[in-house]
């Protein structure tokens, strides 16, 4: 039961690759179809850390309008940028946390990069949907207290590419204890993915 007392559902997402492998770092959203959007959840501040030359989390899902901080936990500077249409910004070489967080007010995929570290790549999935999560290592994500009603669901994984058009799935949610929705993600053909940070001591990219 949600705090408001409206009947709520547990929505469990299971995201898998085409080969059946559980996919972590998949953004999952549930957007109500009923007219009149419910009150948005309290705006949270988003945080994307840079730890050990890696964006943590790799994929962050935020509500549009969220301001995201980008603390640099490393003792080297980073130059965070994105040229994604949803948000083009850059945080020139900095240490610590920039004073101003970055507000992401457009839905879409924002690809983060570091100008001086080619391999640093992260994603911020900005959504208008009130209910969203990111899958864990088991490829699963749980949305609790989702009011019953009609929703469209969507899962996005970086392997689909930043421009992937969302494939919404419409569902009717009721008060069942747990509703599992399986999504199979087809990796975008031809899209190149770069590996993450090389291991310390490794000679180069490969």
């Amino acid at each position, binding site marked *: 039961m949600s705090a408001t007392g409206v009947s709520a559902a547990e929505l469990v997402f299971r995201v898998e690759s085409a080969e059946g492998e559980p996919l972590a770092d998949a953004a999952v959203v549930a957007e109500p179809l009923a007219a009149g959007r419910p009150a948005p959840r309290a705006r949270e501040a988003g945080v994307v850390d840079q730890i050990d030359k890696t964006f943590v989390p790799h994929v962050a899902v935020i509500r549009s309008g969220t301001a995201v901080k980008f603390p640099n936990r490393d003792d080297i500077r980073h130059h965070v*940028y994105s040229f994604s249409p949803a948000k083009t910004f850059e945080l020139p070489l900095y240490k610590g946390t920039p004073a101003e967080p970055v507000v992401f007010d457009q839905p879409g995929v924002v690809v*983060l990069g570091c100008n001086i570290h080619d391999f640093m790549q992260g994603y911020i999935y900005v959504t208008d949907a009130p209910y969203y999560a990111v899958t864990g290592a088991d490829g699963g994500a749980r949305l609790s207290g989702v009011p019953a009603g009609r929703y469209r669901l969507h899962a996005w994984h970086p392997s689909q590419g930043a*421009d992937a058009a969302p494939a919404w799935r419409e569902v009717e949610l009721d008060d069942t204890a747990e509703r599992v929705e399986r999504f199979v993600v087809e990796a975008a053909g031809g899209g190149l993915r770069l590996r993450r940070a090389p291991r310390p001591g490794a000679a180069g990219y490969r």
Partner: protein
Amino acid sequence: MRFRSFQARLLSFFVGLLVVVQAGGFLITNAANSDYARRQVIDSLRVTAGIFERLLADRNASMLEAGRLLSGDFAFKTAYATREPGTILSMLQNHRSRIGADVMLLLGLDDRVLADTLHPGRSGVAFDQPGLIDLAYADARGEAAALVLVDGVPYQMAVLPLLIPHHDGWILIGFRVDDGFARALQGLAASEVSVLGPGAGGPRLLASSLETERRRELAAAATVLPEEASAPRVMALGGEEYLSLSVPLPGIAGQGLSALLQRSLDRALAPFRRLQWVLLGLFLLGVLLSLVGGAAIAGTVSRPVWQLARGAARVAEGDYSQRVELHQRDEVGELARSFNHMVAGLAERDRVRNLLGKVVSPAIAEELLSKEIELGGEERQATVLFADIRNFTTLSETRAPREILDLLNTLLTRFSDVIEAHGGVIDKYIGDAVMALFGAPLAHEDDPARAVAAALALSGAVDELNAAGVLGPQPVGVGMGINTGLVVAGNMGSRQRLNYTVLGDGVNLASRLEGLTRVYGVRVVVSDATRRAAPGFAYRELDWVRVKGRGQPERVFEPVAPLEALSPRRRTDLETHARALAAYRGRDWGTAEALLADLPDDVVRRLYLERIAAFRAESPPADWDGSVRFDHK
């Protein structure tokens, strides 16, 4: 000519050998050199191909390097993010000129052209070489490079992903593969480089380091684009022979570009050609020297040999004065020396022979020379003639010795001529007497007749000489005795000094008979044996004698004349004489006298008349057989 052909044989052998060896060597080295040059050229073409591929690979690598830098360039990404075609294009132009590329493009992930420095107006169209992008997708790093044709011009194009930081597009960088590139490669590898690509109606020449004329020829000659690296072929360009190696160039499937690497075979062979000329020169020089040297050396053999042959021919004709003077110290010189010695020996022998012939008669000389000199003789029938010159001693008192010898020699020469003319042989001269042989050492059928004829001839000769007044105021006489019988003929004396002569009773008798000529006042007295053996003459029986040392009485005769030359008068006289002799022997003195009276007066007639007168006074003993004894010689 014999020797010409020896010289020719020698020369033709050696020159021929030289020609064969040289020609063989020439051909072999020629073939080996050509082969070597070819292989060298092919090797260097292969190296050139390697360099070419390497150059392309290096350029690809540097393009990708530059591209990577570009892709990571923040300003580039920022400009790109504006999505403004104009901005993007100008930025691309900027970067293109920074890195000196000939073309740069930017493509979206949908393979659409965002900016193209070659075609500035073109934007939003599909990229016309999607194969290149496919290659990039196949690569782990998303990079690729290939040769592509853009507006028919070959470009070395590199493609790499634009990362912002995610893959959002493609950066393409291209360099033209043009004449400059070909010439740069030519400068490196010293091979002619040409790039052929597909064209309507056959391969098109896209780039080349060749100059205009040869380019045209090549463009005309290229008929097919090889799919794979092929074996080197020979092509003629501008009159020179080129070895050509085709190397297919990495491109997109179906683009079919290939590089043609060429090297002038003629130029590679040039040093060998020079060598060939040198070899040819040496060869000709060798032939010349062989000819000259061979002729000279052959000459040192053939000329002397020719001289020797001519000399030998003259020697064969009897000219023993021939000498062949050669001043060589070799075998031929040795031969000439031997030849000269031989000729000298022949001359010597000839002289000795002549001398021998003079000392003894030629016939005896021949006999002596023909057999081994042995002492000893053989028994044979022979006719011996002794001729004694009368009144010669008287002659000698009135004349000088030299004159006497000359006269004697004249006479003896004449005698000798006559005797030899009749086939007789002078055995020896004994002072002013001559002993001659008929039937030894050489026998004829009619030796006795020859002897008698010779005697008559000798008598005539003496008359002639007397008549000519050659022999002095006083006429010279001659007495001859001839006997035919068994003698021993042979070499008498010692081994070092011998005489060919005859011995025996028969010889002695002849000598006695000669002595008898004085008695009967005749010139010639022959024995009965001789008379019987020479029946062609008319004889007058002189007497029946017993000579000292012989048991049997001998009838002795005087040859009067050849039968056919006998005058009737003489014949009658001979008959009368014979009857007279018969009467005498029959003791019929009267008849004998009467008959003798009819005969011309001569010593014989007077002798018999004396005898008859003596016998009339005192009768001969009862056992008187008509013979008369001579006890002295």
